[in-house]
């Protein structure tokens, strides 16, 4: 049993910290140069072959530093979708490009009205000679505004398949926008999009959940990093802010709220660690339960921490000029991306009920 970073993880963490502390103009390019884009890419495809915990090491720093980079969309979930479903040739084509930072990839699994239900899939693929024709709509595709390659889930005959679409292909309409935390996304409409046969990656059903779980774990880790900063900022603010002739950290009610935050944070941290540890595991049940557990705490207790932090800051906490709000918005995005609390509690609870032993 060991809850510390390995030597490699420590090095990765230090590099990311240094990079974010610097004044890079193109942060993602610098990240790619130090290997972050390939952190989770298998070694045989020019990556570092990292696992979920290695991804977490990066995600924590991304959250702590409010970095807006396509690590999650491209280097984690986009990469994993290709890696889990692609043929040897497809992987050889795309994964090294991802690792080098030359290709941005997004997953487009969710659809309007699906509300996190990956089985709710109306996008249709039909055979067309050697290739396929796709029609459908995808919603809130993270990184979809900048993606070069979009991994789309669609029904083909009676199965669910993943396809790799060139973002510039005819028939694709993107509506780009920013999320609450500033990262880009897009709604995507597919109208008679024609694909070559080699755009078919493979079976989607089980893989979608695996990819989605990795995304949930990574964004939970980002939120954990942001929450750590929120708690530290709030403690610091209470110490320096004076009211009624004393630092407001003297007020017992505020002291206890800080203590509540600390209690919640340490427990959340444990679950995020476990979720990330299992985020690339093939054991779908353990992975799903651990990821849902972490995601629920982030959504529920993370939100609580954010609300209390704003409250304890008072007026300054609700201004857009003060950094607190940016961290809070980062956590809020993590609440709603890759399944909200109710989605995960239902998934976790169903498994609990189905498997309760007697």
């Amino acid at each position, binding site marked *: 049993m060991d809850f510390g970073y390995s030597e490699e993880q420590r090095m990765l963490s230090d590099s990311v910290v240094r990079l974010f502390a610097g004044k890079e103009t193109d942060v993602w390019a610098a990240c790619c140069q130090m290997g972050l884009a390939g952190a989770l890419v298998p070694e045989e495809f020019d990556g570092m072959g990292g696992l979920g915990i290695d991804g977490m090491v990066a995600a924590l720093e991304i959250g702590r530093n409010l970095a807006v980079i396509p690590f999650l969309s491209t280097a984690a979930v986009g990469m994993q979708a290709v890696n889990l479903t692609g043929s040897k040739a497809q992987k050889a084509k795309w994964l090294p490009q991802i690792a080098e930072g030359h290709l941005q990839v997004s997953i487009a699994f969710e659809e309007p009205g699906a*509300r996190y239900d990956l089985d709710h899939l109306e996008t249709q693929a039909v055979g067309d000679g050697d290739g396929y024709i796709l029609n459908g709509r995808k919603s*809130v595709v993270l990184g979809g505004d900048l993606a070069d390659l979009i991994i789309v889930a669609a029904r083909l005959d009676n199965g669910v398949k993943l396809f790799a679409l060139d973002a510039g292909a005819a028939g694709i309409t993107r509506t780009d926008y920013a*999320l*609450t935390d500033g990262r880009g996304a897009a709604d995507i409409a597919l109208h008679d999009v024609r694909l070559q046969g080699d755009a078919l990656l493979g079976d989607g059903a089980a893989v979608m959940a695996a990819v989605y779980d990795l995304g949930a774990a990574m964004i939970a880790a980002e939120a954990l990093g942001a929450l750590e900063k929120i708690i530290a900022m709030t403690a610091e603010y209470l110490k320096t802010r004076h009211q009624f002739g004393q630092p407001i950290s003297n007020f017992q009610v505020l002291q206890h709220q800080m203590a509540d935050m600390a209690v919640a944070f340490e427990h959340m941290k444990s679950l995020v660690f476990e979720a990330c540890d299992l985020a690339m595991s093939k054991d779908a049940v353990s992975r799903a339960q651990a990821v849902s557990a972490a995601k629920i705490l982030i959504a529920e207790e993370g939100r609580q921490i954010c609300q209390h932090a704003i409250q304890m800051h008072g*007026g300054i906490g*609700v201004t*857009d000029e003060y950094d607190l709000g940016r961290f*809070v918005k980062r956590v809020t995005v993590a609440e709603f991306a890759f399944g*909200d609390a109710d989605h995960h509690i239902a998934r976790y609870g169903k498994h609990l009920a189905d498997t309760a032993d007697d």
Partner: protein
Amino acid sequence: MDFSLGAADLAFQQEVRDFLKAEFPPELAAKSAAEIRFKKEDYDSWQNILARKGWIAPAWPVEHGGCGWSPVQQNIFDEETFAIGAPRVLPFGIRLVGPVVYTYGSKAQKARFLPGIVSNETYWCQGFSEPGAGSDLASVKTTAVRDGDNFVVNGQKTWTSYAHYADWIFCLVRTDPGVKKQLGISFLLIDMKTLGISVRPIRTLDGDHFVNEVFLDNVIVPAENLVGEENKGWGYAKFLLGNERTGIAGVGMTKADLVRLRHIARTEKRNGRPLIEDPLFQARLARLEIDLRALELTNLRMLAEGAQGAFPSILKIRGSQLQQRSVELQMDALGPYALPWQADAMEPAWNGEPVGPDYAKARAPAYFDRRKTTIYGGSTEVQKNIIAKTMFGF
């Protein structure tokens, strides 16, 4: 015990409804329904209608141009206007400075300032909060130094709502720095056009601009603009802060929020069923409706029994919490479409196409905006201190 309105109040309610039906501008109703942010011209348009009708100052005595309505009538009016989505009447003249002027002001001040308020010609803003003061309102640092017939005012105010609309500001200023902080404060009325006043916008978490910083740099204010006695301003401020009794719970606003929430919950789906039928969401919605009904009744109890002891604080605490929970649950109802940030789509000038359902754009901004309700107007923490004081009798 009788929980229903009496005949006279029912007749009044009908009168209000008839008036609103006839006079509330359809273009404001449309803006409200589409969640386009109200601007000065919108407030103006509605407040002018109310002023013409003589209904802009519900709580003021008739002699000063007010309605002289009972608390129950004021509450009816509040709820009815909120229900149709009318802009709230900006409170700074009507609810805040007006009663101070007609209670403590000189005859000349009454004659000069009250007509502009009830005719909706003069916009006011409130210069109480200062940087770093927070809940400690009496720690006023802005100074006013007597210089012949004038005061010279220097300092900074903050969280000043709608200062950019205002013609006048009512300020707490320190006129005696040598005494206990509550004893050296005066209450001064200042023309916003005076040389030395500048306004800097503060953008809030929802991306909107309604609060400001106000800088006062050697601002010359005629001594005749001093309300009441010099160094007695803290007493007037406490009167002002304690004066607002109806509307403290925000029942009308939260009711309107719940109408929207139910609409969203019927429209959104989880697992192919309307969200309102999802057991977890339904339970939260039910819980919120129940708490709102409790708040509504408790508010009515205060109106009927008088705003004594801890009652106003109790209503402020729960009322502000429900104002938060209602928009929080609206946001939760969206699921993935809570993610896009579309605050710009609430601006009248915006002409894009929002993504997601039409009610999505305002949800996350509203959630962030409402965090303020437990902070301003006496934070939840301050209200709890007050309640504890009444319970422990110290």
